[in-house]
C-alpha cells in the first residue's frame, strides 16, 4: 500500500504554522543553510514525526517552535500568534541530556511545575506533597521508581533520557516537542515507552512533534510523517499514517506497516544522495 500524501488541515486549527521559514548560521562567506523556505502546518492534536538524515534541520524546526531559535526568514506562528507570544504550555525533551547537574532527578523533573502557570501557584507548599507524588508516579511509569534522590551524573545515559522525558511531560503540556527521546534506549525499553506515549496521546491528545531516526518508531507513534532532506534542509514528503489505534508492536511486523517503513527508507536514501559527491 502506498501512503497517501497528506491534505493540509484547516488553517484556523493550526497549533504550529511555519511560513516559508529559512534558518542560516554563520557569516556570509561561510553560510550554512540549516532550513530553506520550509512551510509546515500542524493541527491541534496531531502527532507528527520528522525523519531525515543527520543534519537536515529536524532539531532546528523544534527549536524554532520552542522559541529558542529565531528564523532568518519567514514567520513562525504558534497557536496563531508569533512564536513566544502565545500562552501554549510547551514540554520539550532535548536531543542532548540537559538535566540541571545541581538538582536531583526529582527536582529536575519538578522544574516545569515551579515555572509554568497554573502549577507555579503554591509550588512551595505542594513540592513536598502533591507534586512530589506526581513526580514519583511519572518516574515509575518510565521505570525510574526510586531514582528521585539520585543526581544526573549517577544515572546512565538512557536513564537520563527518560528523566528528561518526564520533565517534558510533568506539566501536562499541550504541545510536546520530542527530539530523539528514545535514542539512547534498548529496543525493549523503547517499545515500552512507545506504548506509554501512545496511551498518553490518546488520553490527553496533546499536539506532538517527534524527531526520530527510527522509522518503525515514527510509523508506530505518528499520525503523520514528514521526511526531510539536508543541504539545504527542507521537507520533501508529508504523508499520513493510516493505521488504526491503539497500535501494537506485533502490528509493526504486518505487511502494510513494513511497506510504509520501506517506502520511508527509500525516500531518505534518495534524499541522502551521495554525500561524498555533494560535499
Amino acid at each position: 500500500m502506498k501512503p497517501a500524501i497528506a491534505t493540509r488541515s484547516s488553517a484556523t486549527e493550526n497549533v504550529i504554522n511555519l511560513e516559508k521559514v529559512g534558518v542560516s548560521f554563520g557569516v556570509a562567506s561561510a553560510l550554512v543553510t540549516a532550513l530553506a523556505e520550509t512551510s509546515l502546518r500542524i493541527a491541534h492534536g496531531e502527532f507528527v514525526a520528522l525523519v531525515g538524515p543527520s543534519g537536515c534541520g529536524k532539531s532546528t524546526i523544534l527549536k524554532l517552535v520552542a522559541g529558542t531559535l529565531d528564523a532568518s526568514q519567514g514567520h513562525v506562528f504558534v497557536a496563531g500568534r508569533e512564536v513566544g507570544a502565545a500562552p501554549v504550555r510547551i514540554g520539550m525533551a532535548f536531543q542532548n541530556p540537559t538535566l540541571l547537574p545541581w538538582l536531583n532527578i526529582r527536582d529536575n523533573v519538578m522544574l516545569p511545575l515551579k515555572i509554568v502557570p497554573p502549577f507555579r501557584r503554591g509550588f512551595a507548599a505542594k513540592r513536598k506533597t502533591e507534586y512530589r507524588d506526581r513526580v514519583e508516579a511519572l518516574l515509575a511509569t518510565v521505570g525510574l521508581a526510586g531514582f528521585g534522590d539520585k543526581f544526573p551524573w549517577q544515572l546512565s545515559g538512557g536513564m537520563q533520557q527518560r528523566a528528561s522525558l518526564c520533565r517534558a511531560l510533568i506539566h501536562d503540556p499541550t504541545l510536546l516537542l520530542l527530539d530523539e527521546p528514545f535514542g539512547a534506549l534498548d529496543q525493549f525499553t523503547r517499545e515500552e515507552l512507545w506504548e506509554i506515549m501512545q496511551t498518553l496521546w490518546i488520553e490527553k491528545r496533546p499536539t506532538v512533534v517527534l524527531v526520530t531516526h527510527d522509522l518503525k518508531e515514527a510509523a508506530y507513534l505518528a499520525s503523520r510523517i514528514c521526511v526531510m532532506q539536508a543541504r539545504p534542509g527542507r521537507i520533501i514528503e508529508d504523508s499520513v499514517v493510516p493505521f488504526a489505534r491503539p497500535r501494537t508492536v506485533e502490528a509493526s511486523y504486518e505487511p502494510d506497516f513494513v511497506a510504509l517503513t520501506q517506502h520511508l527508507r527509500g525516500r531518505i536514501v534518495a534524499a541522502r544522495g551521495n554525500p561524498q559527491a555533494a560535499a
Partner: protein
Amino acid sequence: MSPTLRRRLFSIGCILGFFVAWELLCLAFRVSELILPRPSVILVTMWADFPAILPHALQTLYTTLAGFGLGIVIGFLLGMLIGGSRLAYDTAYPMLVGFSSIPKVALVPIFVLWFGAGTVPAILTAMIMCIFPIVVNVATGLSATEPELQDVMKTLRATKLEILWNIGLPRSMPYFFASLKVAATLAFVGSVISETVASNKGIGNLMMIASSNFDVPLVFAGLFILAALGVALYVVFSLIEGRVTGWSVRSDTFSTGG
C-alpha cells in the same frame, strides 16, 4: 588503612617534618634568634605572651571578617551585574582591572584621611583586597552558563529573573566559592597592611612594635597566628563549599547528605 587516610597522614607528616627540619637546621647552624627564631621558641613566646596577643588577634579577626563580609556582598552583587549585562561588563571590567592593579597599601593613607586611623581603614582595606577575585569569578560563572540549560527555561517561558535564579546562580556557585577561598586569605593581608600602617591595635600593629623592639620571636608569633587564622577561614569555606557545590565535583557526600 584506606588510601585517603594514608594520604592525609602522609601530608600531616610532611608538614610536621618541615617544622622539625626548621628547628634542627637552626640548631645545627646556631642561627641567632634575632634573625630566624626556632619554631619551639616561637611557640613558647606565643604561650607566654598569650594575654597580650589575644586582643590584637581578636581585633584582626574582627576587621578581617567585617571587611570580608562587606567584600562578599558587594563583590557578589557587582559580579552578578557584570556577568548579567553586556554594558556593565564593558564599562566595569576595565575599571576593575585598573583598580586591582593599584597597590592597596597606597590606599590606606586615603582611608585614614577620610575615616581616621584604626578599625575602619582596616575593614575597608580588607574589603578592597577581596572584592576583585569575587567579582571576576561570579561574572565568569554567570557567563559560563550553558545556553542549552537556558533553553530549557526559555521553552517554559521563564522570565529573565527566573533564569538567573534557577540557572545562573547555581551555575556560578562553584566559581563563587573558589573565589571565597582566595578572598578569605587576601582579606587578612588587607587588614594587616592597614594595621601596620595606621592603627594601634591588631596583629599588624603588634608585629610593627615587636620588630622595632627587636623582639623577633614575637614578630614570628604574629605571623603564625595570622597563618593559623587564614587556614581556619579557608577550612570553613571549603566545608561550606563541599555542602553547596558538591554537584560540580560529583562528591558522594553531596548526594547522600542532600
